[in-house]
């Protein structure tokens, strides 16, 4: 079953008087439970593609279905709800709310959802924190954590709402190689445990060995799927 179905996706940016064609007509389907990597050089359109899939940016043209829902026609409220209920994010650097500790950061999306009781929220957050190996850092604020630990918190937060997809834009870019590997192993482990679809972008060839499928993008077009 395809969790993402993209047809003829184009994205243009205005840059001064010129128009940048970031995506020139992308067709892509991603199966549920996949662990996919999008690779390509800088400026190839990896981040733009992730942003459109993640309802962070809108498409100029084309169709994007996430969990069977056409996201290009949603209003701001619906888009926000989509992000909250169906998508998890792991960003390169801007990751956590600085004034909240690890537990509170992980609980944050669940508190926004207002579906579970306080006890259930706490239980779910603690479970994920344990799974990412940060039990002893549960009361630490982001400033008191290392880069790798912060990304672990981000992974736990991305997964806490049981999203259909987790999008990670170069999640290891700012980490040393050892920590980067740990993070990718953790993501893969979470993909296995939670059966959540992971899509991550990278331009690091070493990261590719973790991916179940790989999409290569260049100049706004998909040039290879494997």
């Amino acid at each position, binding site marked *: 079953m395809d969790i993402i179905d993209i047809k003829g996706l184009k994205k243009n940016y205005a840059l001064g008087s010129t128009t940048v064609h970031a995506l020139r007509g992308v067709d892509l389907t991603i199966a549920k439970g996949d662990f996919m990597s999008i690779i390509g050089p800088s400026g190839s359109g990896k*981040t733009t593609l992730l*942003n459109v899939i*993640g309802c*962070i*940016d809108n498409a100029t043209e084309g169709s994007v279905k996430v969990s069977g829902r056409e996201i290009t026609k949603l209003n*701001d*409220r619906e888009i*926000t*709800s989509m*992000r*909250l*209920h169906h998508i*998890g*994010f792991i*960003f*390169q*650097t*801007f*990751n*956590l*709310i*600085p*004034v*909240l500790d690890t537990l*509170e950061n992980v609980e*944050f*999306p669940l*508190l*926004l*959802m207002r579906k579970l009781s306080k006890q259930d929220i706490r239980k779910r957050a603690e479970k994920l924190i344990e799974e990412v190996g940060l039990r002893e850092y549960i009361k630490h604020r982001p400033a008191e954590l290392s880069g790798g630990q912060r990304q672990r918190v981000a992974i736990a*937060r991305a997964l806490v*709402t049981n999203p259909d997809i987790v999008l990670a*834009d170069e999640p290891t870019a700012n980490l040393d190689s050892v920590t980067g590997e740990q993070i990718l192993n953790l993501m893969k482990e979470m993909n296995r445990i939670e059966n959540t679809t992971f899509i991550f972008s990278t331009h690091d060839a070493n990261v590719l060995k973790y991916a179940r499928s790989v999409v290569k993008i260049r100049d706004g077009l998909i040039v290879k799927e494997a």
Partner: protein
Amino acid sequence: MNLIIKIAWRNIMRHRGKSLVIGVILFVGALLMTVGNGVISGMDQGMQENIINGFTGDIVLVPEKQESDEVFIDMMGKTIEQINDFKKIDSVLKTIPELRAWVPIGKNGAMVLNEEGGSPGFTYLIGVDFKRYRKVFPNTMKAVEGKLLSPGEAGVLVPTGARKQMFEVSNIWFVPEGCEADTSQMFPEAKAMWQNLLAKDNIVFMGMGADNTSTDIRAGVKGIVKYNALNQLWGNFALVDIESYRTCQGYISAQDRATLVLSDDEKQLLDGDETDLDNLFSIDAGETVVNSEHHNDLDQPGEDAIVSGKEQNQTDLDVGTYNLVLVRLENHSNLDAKVSIVNKHLKAAGTGVRAVTWKKAIGTIGSMAVLIRMALIMFVGFLFFVAIIIIVNTLSMAALERTSEIGMMRAVGARKGFISTMFFGETALLSFFFGGLGIIAGYLIVKMLAICKFTSENDMVQLLYGGDLFHPFLSGWDIIISIILLSIVTLIAVIYPMLVARSITPLDAIARE
């Protein structure tokens, strides 16, 4: 909501410097507003009490024919109509339990003639039976030179303000009979020309009645007086004995009534509307009879009722003409309701007068506190305007600095409403904490000022104090108004930063990274 408060509070603590700047502004604004309100409330109450207790009473009865209720200081110089049947009014007032005391007075303007040929002056004259006046308004004045009027004594009491005004116009320095000019009581201009100063112990007044029937009178100056409170405000009203006043204004005096006894028709004719000329030329009009036998009907004079060498008593005085009746209540509450009650009684009895509140009677001066309050509100409003600009700027900068954080929140599912509430929460917490501190500090300062019991004899300071004692106080309303104003400032200050924060998208955050 807990989450928002938690994030808001921690953000305040995280950005202590900015929070402190905003907090100090809110604190100072709330403090100034609270203290200012306390001072004005004290002034307002002081003025009310001093004006009611010292000059006007709670209710003023004015003739129905009088167009304006503003009978004390009429800028247009209109004369006050006559009350010719005070006894009837008196009997009605006696039936109303809410009333404590009342005194009829004459009140109109008079020219101060300059016998040396210089410019004439002007003053307001208040004609009273001084003994009765003092019973209703005790301890309101003291004689700084000479003495107060003895019961039934004819003469004039000149307040310091009126003497100054008369001097400025006519260069005459009035001194009480039998007294030397006291240079210690002179203001600098008078003292400077003391050697050439013309000092007089009597004043020639010419009444300024609308019908030009006034008479010149020469009144001996018995004392130069100073009101214990609000001398600046009331110091232009010279007090004269009622019979001299009536003569001056061309009214029927009690003495006239005693010597001229008329039939009912004639009396009606005399007291009637002057415009009803038909009555003047009717057949009955020629039948005026002076009934000298009625002299015997006069009450025997009291021991202390001597006017211009002729003995009189209270009953005699009340048959003459007055202009106003000043009424004091048992308590000041529900004034408008009590005025309505009095009016019902007066109308039912056909007294020809209506009751108005002291505030209406005194006009704009009674609203001085309101004017000063408006000035304070404008000052605090300006302060808050500046505060709003600083707060808006600081919060907007804070919102932009937090683009990554806000963008990330939006990315993980926070709605714009959440971001708005979070920003509002931060400002509201600052406002609540620092503004609240400002109000509490202001309240304590007002209490301390009240405990200090500052007094002043300076006229201008007394106007500010609302009397001789500075007694600021805060009512519940004052505090509620402070809280409302603070809330409005918070709301206005947070709107723009909230819009800035709301407009931040996850994409902005990514772009910034």
